[in-house]
């Protein structure tokens, strides 16, 4: 269900503004493999005896490597930036509020400011910040620059909250952004590029927050405009017609949002730089495969009618569990799964919903899943127990 763990790809930087070397030099010492291995080992234990790691006086501090840098991509072509600006702003030019994640050199920021939008630049790399701040000098405060990593907002476990890790509540409060009710319009738009290695993780995190009305979605139906890799895009938009890519994420994502493809940009417009700063052909097979794909610019708007009386931010985790359970064995019938999910007479439910007993899970559309869930949730008179799930069973996704 999840992709294989990626090895450390060579660093990629895309830069037209400055020499590649400059970008590379900004990155602090990369995590060594060993440090990572040691980090991963922490959770292991024998039955009663904790592994007793040796005290190493000169040991490098492993905490740093965990937060270690990852290569980022930036918009650097003015032409592309203009196209994106048009797509982003559409007709509502004036007064639109746009949260730009990791603007880097700020090419797009400039375009957006020029078109009169209000821009909040969340930049995770400290080095870009002075330049970005200089962009906003003569725009009457239409630009806010914050040292913040959008994809690390509201961490679930973190001992110390310090920039670029932030809490959305404090961030939005300082920006003066007010919450809009779910049924009303869009409070703000976000532009960004999913982090290369963690596209899926970031997507999951956003969806989890969306269903929970947490983090940025506390403020209403935030519109996301994101660059995403081809593979994830296909997964996100898969339907029963494409059984190879149809999976949990597709269902959860499509039930929650309208996914609209705005633009395709070939990967080749991004260069890959090695550590030495020279342009190199990447040796890593995975990366070179990636290079042949397109980057997809998509828009995700949460559905107004996502939440109903039966699917709410209170019980969405059961829905998640149901879908995950079903896709654990996508070739099995729905009936088969329902028997393990709910003590309610599953045949009865299917009969009422007029679904064939032999209907397979991977033939169900995302909407079907939602309907089945809501039907069970709204069952009455069959005892108080609708689900076998309880929330100690799954670890939440973020």
């Amino acid at each position, binding site marked *: *269900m*999840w*992709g*294989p763990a990626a090895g450390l790809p060579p660093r990629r930087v895309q830069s037209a503004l400055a020499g590649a070397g400059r970008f590379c030099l900004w990155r602090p010492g990369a995590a060594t493999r060993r440090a990572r291995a*040691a980090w991963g*080992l922490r959770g*292991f234990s*024998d*039955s*009663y005896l904790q*592994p*007793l*790691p*040796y*005290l*190493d*006086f000169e*040991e490098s*501090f*492993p*905490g740093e490597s965990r937060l270690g840098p990852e290569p980022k991509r930036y918009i650097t072509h003015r032409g592309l930036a203009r196209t994106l600006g048009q797509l982003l702003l559409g007709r509502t030019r004036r007064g639109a509020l746009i949260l730009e994640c990791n603007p880097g050199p700020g090419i797009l920021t400039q375009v957006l400011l020029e078109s009169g939008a209000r821009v909040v630049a969340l930049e995770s790399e400290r080095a870009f910040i002075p330049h970005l701040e200089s962009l906003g000098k003569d725009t009457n405060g239409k630009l806010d620059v914050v040292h913040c990593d959008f994809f690390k907002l509201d961490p679930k476990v973190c*001992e*110390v909250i*310090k920039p670029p890790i932030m809490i959305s509540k404090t961030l939005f409060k300082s920006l003066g952004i007010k*919450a809009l*009710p*779910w049924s009303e319009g869009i409070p703000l738009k976000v532009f960004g590029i999913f982090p290369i290695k963690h596209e899926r993780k970031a997507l999951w995190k956003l969806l989890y927050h969306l269903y*929970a*009305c*947490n983090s940025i979605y*506390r403020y209403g139906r935030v519109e996301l405009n994101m660059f995403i890799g081809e593979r994830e895009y296909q997964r996100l938009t898969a339907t029963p017609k494409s059984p190879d890519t149809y999976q949990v994420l597709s269902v959860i994502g499509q039930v929650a949002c309208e996914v609209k493809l705005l633009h395709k940009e070939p990967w080749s417009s991004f260069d890959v730089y090695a550590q030495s700063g020279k342009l190199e052909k990447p040796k890593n097979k995975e990366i070179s495969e990636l290079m042949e794909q397109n980057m997809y610019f998509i828009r995700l708007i949460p559905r107004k009618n996502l*939440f109903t*009386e039966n699917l*709410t*931010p*209170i019980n969405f985790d059961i829905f998640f*569990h149901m879908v*995950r*359970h079903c896709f*654990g*064995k996508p*070739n*099995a*019938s729905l009936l*088969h799964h329902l*028997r*393990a999910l709910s*003590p309610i*007479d599953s045949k009865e439910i299917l009969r009422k919903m007029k679904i064939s007993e032999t209907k397979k899970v991977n033939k169900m559309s995302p909407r079907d899943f939602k309907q089945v869930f809501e039907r069970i949730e709204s069952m009455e008179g069959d*005892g*108080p*127990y609708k689900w*076998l*799930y*309880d*929330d*100690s*069973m*799954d*670890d939440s996704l973020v």
Partner: protein
Amino acid sequence: MSALCWSRGAAGFRRTLRLSGCTRPAALEGTMVGLGGPRRSSSASPRELDRRKDWGLAELLEVLEARVRQLQAESLSEMMVKRVKVAQAPTVPTRWEQKLNQDKQKMQNRQQRIEKRLQKHSQKLAQKLKPRPLRLEPQLLSEELAGCLQQEGLQSPWEERLEQVLQKASEKLSVKMQAPPDDQEEEEHVSARQRNMLAFLECCLTTDHLPLAHHVLVSQHSMPRRRQLLTLTMYNIVMLGWARKGSLKELVYVFFMMKDAGLSPDLLSYAAALQCLGRVNSDVHTIKRCVKQMAQDGLQLQQLFTDLAMPTEERAALLNALLKAQPDFSPPQAPPQVNTSTLLKDIYAQDGPTSYPRLPLPLKTLQDLFQEQLRMELEANISVESVEKAPKLDRPVLEARKTLKALRAQWEAALHRVLQETKARMAREAHQGQPSLYPFLCLLSEKDLVGLLMQALQALPSQGESLMFLAHDLGIRVFNRHAVQQKQRNHQLQELEQRYLRYLHLLASDTQVATPCLPRQYWEALGAPDMPPLQPWPMPLLMKLGRHLAEMLVQAVEMPHNLGTSQGSRKLIPVLYHVYSFRSFRQIGILKPHPAYTQLLATAAESTLNFESTDVPMLCPPLPWTSSHTGAFLLNPTKLMRGVDGNLQHQRLLESCPATDLHGALDTLTQLGNCAWRVNGRLLDLVLEVFLDKGSVRLGVPPPVSEAPQPPEGVLPPNTPPARKAEVRRELAHCLKVAREMHSLRMEALYRLSLAQHLRSRIFWLPHNMDFRGRTYPCPPHFNHLGSDLARSLLQFAEGRPLGPQGLDWLKIHLVNLTGLKKRESLKARLAFANQVMEDILDSADRPMTGKKWWMKADEPWQTLACCIEVAQAVRSPDPTAYISHLPVHQDGSCNGLQHYAALGRDSIGAASVNLLPSDLPQDVYSEVAAKVEVFRREDVKKGVLVAQVLEGFISRKVVKQTVMTVVYGVTRYGGRLQIEKRLRELDSFPQEFIWEASHYLVRLVFKSLQEMFSGTRAIQHWLSESARLISQAGYAVEWVTPLGIPVVQPYHHDVKYQVPGGIQSITCTSTVDSRQKPNTLKQKNGFPPNFIHSLDSAHMMLTALHCYRKGLTFVSVHDCFWTHAADIPVMNQVCREQFIHLHSQPILQDLSTFLQKRFCDNPRSHKPSERLLLSQLQNRLKSVPQTGDFNLEQVKHSKYFFS
């Protein structure tokens, strides 16, 4: 019929799954591991598939028979019609009629053909369904052997055939006989299938299914591919079985097969053959022939008695045969063994004053206690009254209990049925020549097995239990019960009883023994050594068996679907559901009870708790430890060295080391277990009062779940916005989390207190064993002296001692120690303080819950209270020196790990700071480190470091204490920083935004300070870990021997995954202790220094314990905290210091270096240059033992605060 539908569905499923499995990309395969299929269909699938198969056969047979009958009837009628026709029209047939006749003829022929075929088929099927007789005669490959077997007209056919087959040389020498039999290497060759087969055969033997074992062996032997998997051991097992029965014919068959497979008999085979000959009273000639052949194979007769362990009865049969052939043969006697370790010389010296302590009970009482304990262990579990408030017995409660009772009766019946069905199916499988689980299901009686499953159901938590855990648990339980039942056979129980009753003469207060000796020595003198233990089953087998049992539960246990609501239809639904839980990348199969069932249990609120008999302290003195597997509980098997299940390397190591090397450990563990305990009733009353009221977090009494924060009440109005619902959800989640944590804490306390209540007016014992480094632990998990303050306060020595002249003072000092108020004061000052607060002490003792509650402010409140009560009673008694005290008084090592390091490295500065040097005031290493850190900080302030300025006034003992304490045990900078961060967070005035930076900075300074103070320590740690790294890189796990002779090996290896496919879901387990895997270098390296230090502190404890025992003291320990009676504290302290000096006078590091060089460098098994280079590096490293400082160990003798 519905079952049929289901199984078909399931079968269809499997097919599709398999298909999809092929197309699934490899990367995804891994994540699908462990996913079989949720509940029912797949749960029932293997079983029902089979049933379907059987059903199919039976059904088909029926259909066919019906069809035959029908056809017969049809053809008959047709014939009659024909005859009639012929009779009616004798005229010349027309062409049409001819044609018609021809056709009819054809039809008839065809029908007959079909009929025949059908009949044949049905006969075949009937044949298949009928149980075939078990095969006895092997099918041999070698014609020569076969001819030999077929030979007729022999006088005493089987004996002569045996002689013949003995002479036949094996065609090929088996590989294993050529290679030196190395345990570890041999095991590598044994595949999972072989291990299954082996376990099957062994189990058949114990369950008296020998013909079945023979049948399976013969079946497998006759299939060439399967035959390759058969090993000598398998033939030997079956042969031994026949030998025990005295069935020569079958034994000869096996012998033939063995030769046919090209294996040559080993010692075990000969032992079996001779035993059998002894039993059938065979003639001398055959026996002589056998003995001669043995000699030709290079095996000595003596070896039969020295190398093999067998019961007395078998030994007698064997000897019977041998004496016929060699009348002058006498089995060798093992010489008495004496421990030769220099450290233990004094302990095992025959002369010198010894006054071993005795138990405060007369012989008669002890004998009765033994009977009680025996009964308890035979019953396997014990129900204990819960101390929780009983519910009001109103209607719902009574009704729920009634329903539950009725349901349980139903379930038992259903389980019986399912078990029988399963057994029948498995038996069929075995009859087809497959090693199935059949004999394992026969190990326990059906009643026992059903009872076991019912208990598992009872114990299932409401949130469910992972199938893997449940399967493992069930498997282990079956194994343990089986082991207990094994000991009931062959008069073993009576033997044990007689021996134990005689053994009690050594311990009882009113008996005499000729020469005082240690319990182990006395026990050994009373009889022959014990049988070797049952070999543990291979893990996959254990899992498979457990999973089968769990499946039966899922299948059999059902309840009405409207349980608890109104009574209506009686439709049955399952109680257990097989669901999946998702934890990041893993999917975990869980068995979860229906919420209504959980609700029913909660309503019924039954007031008994069920414990396994091994979870409860013993009611009589434990069996003395005599070997690595005998000791502690009377019947339940207990390991001397505890470890992860499936970890065989420790056991192997212990078994291969000379028996005498273990004596020190065996005697210490026996002694610790022999300490009699009783419950402090007064304290228990007080604790129960708090427990049943509302609990108290401050006092460590967990409050009931009803005290947890309550989630918001009421139904949300229909148009609540999502944002509000999100908030509600967060509140709910929080409440739930808190409630769950509270529940688990509460249950732990409930178990502990219920057990304490159960044992209130009794005397009991805590049998001990040790971990792989030699640290000792009590076996019963819930109620022992290793627990929290609360648990410790509930325990007292059963034996009392008069306080004597100094006892009261020690009691008072102990009291002050427990409060934690005067840690840095001298003993005198502590005593003065105790006298000063005597009023508070007396008040605490008299009115603990209503008075000034002085005791509640102490570090260890409950123990303080217990001590207050003791002091009060002593002070008020007419003569305090004669007051009989039962309270254990503690002496703590001050930073014991660092003490050992300082002694090893002879660090003067370090030694002074951990109280190895005599001084007037106790030294405190934590304060010293804090002071040193403060010095460094000041320097940094001068340099203008911002963090250093922020930390002004915040560096205290408390901030650095935990880090310093754990440094010895290998805490890293990362862990150290987290510890310090926690401390800083607790400081309200500390600017929180600096926490990260400050903790980072502080941990660096702490490490720097330690490095300066304990320079020798640093060198030793480095030397140890570098050696470990090289050893591990050379492909070995680090091994060493503690100064007392206990062999240690670090069980850290690379993960190995094994899968147990099939059934309700396939189970994937990971094991890090598989010694066949390469060692995990990181863990080996990081683990060595702390583990080595632990093995030293355990050696120190053991030495102290043994010497105290010799002086007649009661002694127990919690690792580096030693307990004894108040009156005996001075003696114990003296012994403790002497033994520390004694231990460290040994060239410990030098010995270690020599041992490691001998073990790893002497015979390099590889000739690869890279490995040889590594080994030479290792040798160099090992030779350069770190230099030591100039600290004089003898000074410890006068250090008051060494342990205080």
